[in-house]
C-alpha cells in the first residue's frame, strides 16, 4: 500500500482536539524534547544530519547543513517560517492549526541544537485561528515547563515568541521575513551573505526553518535519523506533506513517502486524489507551487523526488500540486499566476516590478481577445529579460527568486499550448470561457 508508512507530521490529525496540550501529551508529545535534552546539542544535530531532512519550505536545502553554517557568535536566533503564501500551498496552515505543540516542540529542539538565545515562530497573519492556537499552545508549553527557564529541570532555557505577519507573500523569503520581524517593510536583503546563518535577525547568525521541517524533529529525535532516512529514497528521505488542489475528486492534504510515491499515485489513487474531477482528461499539473514550471501527463509516473523533478525541469517546491483538466484555459491560468507575482512583487528590483506588470498586461489582452500573434514572442522576450536564458533553475536578475519565478507558467503555457494561445488571437477571445478576465 502506498499509504503504508509511518505518519510523522499527521499522526495526530485523527483527533478533533489534536491542538490541545492534553491530547498532545496523551499521544507522546514533548517526549522528543525530553530525549533531546538528555543528549548534547551536537548529538541532536547529528541525528538531523543522519535523517537527510530536506527543508520543506520550497528550496529543499538540507536542514542539518543549514545549521552547520551558523557563524560562531555570542547570540544566535532561531526563526520558524510559518508565512505560508505560495499559491495552492496549505500544508503549514494545517500544521499550525492542528498540531501547534508539535511545531513548538520541534522549535525547542532546533533551538537547543543550534544554541539559539531565543526563538520566533513567524505565523502568516491571515491565519487568525492558527495564531490563536499557537499562542495558546505557547502559553500552555510555558505552564508545562517546556519553555522558559530550566526546561524540564535541565540546564537549558529558552523563550519563544509567536509573531504575526501582516499579509505579504514576499515575507516567505527568509531575508524579507527577517526584515518584517524587525518591524520593517518586507524587502529581501541583498546577497551575499546568502544565508541568515551568517547575518540574520538583528545582524546575528540566525537559522530559518520551515514549519513542516521543524514538525519532523520530535519524531527524528525519538526514532533516530536513520529511521527517517530509511523512508523515501536517496536524497528525498522521509515522508512529506503534499497539498493537492484544482480539478481532482479529493483535494486535500496527504502525507506520503517521498520518491516511492508518484504523481500518478497522488492524483489518481483512491486513498489520495482519487482522479481528475468528473473522469475528465488531465491537461497539466503544477508540481510544486506556482513558481514551478508545469508538468504534463507524461510526467505522471515520476516519483515525488526532489532530484528527479529538478532534472525534469521543475521543482517539488512548496509541496503543492495543482491539477488542471481539459477545460482549463492555459492563458487564463498563466495570467492569474502572473497577476499574483505582479501584485506581490515588493518593488525593489526593476525586472520583477516592471516585468511582471508588462507580461500580466500582455497575457490579459490575449485572454480578452485583443492579442496579436507576435505577443507570444514578446512575452518570451520579456521573460528572458527577467530570467535570462529561460533555463531551469532560472538565472536571477533580481535580489530574490520572486522575479525569476515569473517566467515559469508563461514559458510552460506557450511551449506546450502554443496552438491554444494562438486560437485566442485568431478567435478574438477565450475559447474556454465567455467571461472577460477582470480589469481590477
Amino acid at each position, binding site marked *: 500500500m502506498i499509504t503504508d508508512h509511518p505518519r510523522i507530521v499527521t499522526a495526530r490529525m485523527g483527533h478533533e482536539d489534536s491542538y490541545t496540550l492534553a491530547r498532545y501529551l496523551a499521544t507522546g508529545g514533548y517526549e522528543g524534547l525530553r530525549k533531546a535534552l538528555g543528549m548534547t546539542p551536537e548529538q541532536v544535530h547529528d541525528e538531523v544530519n543522519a535523517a537527510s531532512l530536506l527543508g520543506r519550505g520550497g528550496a529543499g536545502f538540507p536542514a542539518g547543513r543549514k545549521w552547520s553554517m551558523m557563524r560562531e557568535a555570542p547570540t544566535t536566533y532561531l526563526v520558524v517560517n510559518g508565512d505560508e503564501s505560495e499559491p495552492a500551498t496549505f500544508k503549514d496552515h494545517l500544521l499550525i492549526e492542528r498540531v501547534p505543540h508539535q511545531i513548538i516542540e520541534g522549535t525547542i529542539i532546533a533551538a537547543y541544537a543550534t544554541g539559539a538565545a531565543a526563538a520566533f515562530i513567524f505565523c502568516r497573519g491571515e491565519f487568525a485561528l492558527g495564531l490563536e492556537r499557537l499562542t495558546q499552545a505557547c502559553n500552555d508549553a510555558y505552564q508545562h515547563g517546556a519553555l522558559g527557564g530550566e526546561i524540564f529541570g535541565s540546564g537549558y532555557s529558552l523563550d519563544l515568541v509567536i509573531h504575526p505577519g501582516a499579509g*505579504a507573500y514576499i515575507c516567505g523569503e527568509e531575508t524579507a521575513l527577517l526584515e518584517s520581524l524587525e518591524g520593517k517593510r518586507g524587502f529581501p536583503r541583498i546577497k551575499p551573505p546568502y544565508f541568515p546563518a551568517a547575518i540574520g535577525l538583528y545582524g546575528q547568525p540566525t537559522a530559518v526553518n520551515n514549519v513542516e521541517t521543524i514538525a519532523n524533529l520530535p519524531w527524528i529525535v525519538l526514532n533516530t535519523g536513520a529511521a527517517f532516512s530509511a523512508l523515501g529514497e536517496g536524497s528525498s528521505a522521509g515522508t512529506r506533506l503534499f497539498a493537492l488542489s484544482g480539478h481532482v475528486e479529493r*483535494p486535500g492534504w496527504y502525507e506520503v513517502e517521498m520518491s516511492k510515491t508518484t504523481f500518478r499515485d497522488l492524483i489518481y489513487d483512491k486513498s489520495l486524489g482519487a482522479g481528475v474531477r468528473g473522469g475528465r482528461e488531465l491537461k497539466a499539473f503544477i508540481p510544486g507551487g506556482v513558481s514551478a514550471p508545469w508538468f504534463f501527463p507524461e510526467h505522471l509516473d515520476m516519483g515525488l523526488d526532489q532530484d528527479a523533478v529538478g532534472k525534469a525541469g521543475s521543482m517539488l517546491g512548496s509541496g503543492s500540486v495543482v491539477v488542471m483538466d481539459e477545460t482549463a484555459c492555459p492563458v487564463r491560468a498563466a495570467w492569474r499566476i502572473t497577476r499574483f507575482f505582479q501584485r506581490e512583487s515588493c518593488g525593489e528590483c526593476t525586472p520583477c516590478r516592471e516585468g511582471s506588470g508588462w507580461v500580466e498586461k500582455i497575457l490579459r489582452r490575449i485572454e480578452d481577445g485583443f492579442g496579436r500573434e507576435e505577443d507570444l514572442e514578446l512575452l518570451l522576450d520579456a521573460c528572458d529579460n527577467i530570467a535570462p536564458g529561460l533555463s531551469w533553475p532560472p538565472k536571477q536578475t533580481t535580489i530574490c527568486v520572486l522575479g525569476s519565478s515569473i517566467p515559469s507558467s508563461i514559458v510552460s503555457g506557450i511551449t506546450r499550448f502554443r496552438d491554444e494561445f494562438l486560437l485566442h488571437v485568431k478567435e478574438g477571445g477565450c475559447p474556454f470561457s465567455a467571461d472577460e478576465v477582470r480589469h481590477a
Partner: protein
Amino acid sequence: MAEQGLSAENLAKAESIIACYPERRSALIPLCHLAQAQHGYLTNESMEDIAELVGCSPAEVRGTASFYDMLHTEPVGRYVFAVCTNIACMLAGAYEVLSHAEQHLGIRVGQTTHDGLFTLEEAECLAGCDKAVCVQVNHRFFGPIDSEAFDQLAHDLADGGLAGTVPPHGVLSRVNRSVGMPAKAHAAKAGGGAGGAANGGAANSATALEEAADAAATQAAGGATAGQGSAIGSGS
C-alpha cells in the same frame, strides 16, 4: 482627538508585547494589529502612538504598514470579505463568486457598503485550496463557497448569527500571551551565560508576567472560535 489613539489598556498591552522582543521596533507590526483591533483600522493617532512606543517616526509606521495587505490606513467595513481568486480557487469558479458578491453587496472590489457593514476584497491565495472557493471574513475561513453560500454568509453576518465566530475587523488573535520571558530573566540573573540574550532587552522582561488575568478572558472568547469545538488550550 486623543480618543483616536491607543486606549490606556492597549498602551499597557503594547508594553508587554514590546517586552517580548530584543529590539522595540520588532513590535511594530504586532502593535499595528493591536491598534486595528481597537479601531478596525490604523488611525493617524494610533500610528503616532506606535511610533512613540517603538522609537521611530509616524511616517515610518505608515510606510511600513502600507506595505502589508492586512493593515488598513483608511476605515473599512465591520466585516471584510476576502474572496480568493488565485489558481486553485479560479479553477473552482472564484471569479463567478466574486462577480456575484459585487452584485449582492452592490459594491465593487475595494469598496465598502454605505452602512459600513461590508468591505469586499479580492484576495491572493489564503492557503485554503482544499476548500475552494475559499473566502475569509476578517481572516476567519469559510469554504467551499459558491454564490448561494455567499448570500447565506452575508445574511448570517448581517443578522449577527456569526458574531461569536467572526469578531469585528482588526481583531486577530483573541488569545493573548500570558507568560513573560523567564528564560531571558534567568539568563540575565545568571550573568548572560550560555544561550543568554545579549541584546539589552532583558530589562523589559519583568513587566509581562502579570498578563495572565487578561488571558483568562480571551481564553473564554477562544471557546467560540469558528465552530471548532472546545476552548482553545482546554488541555492546560
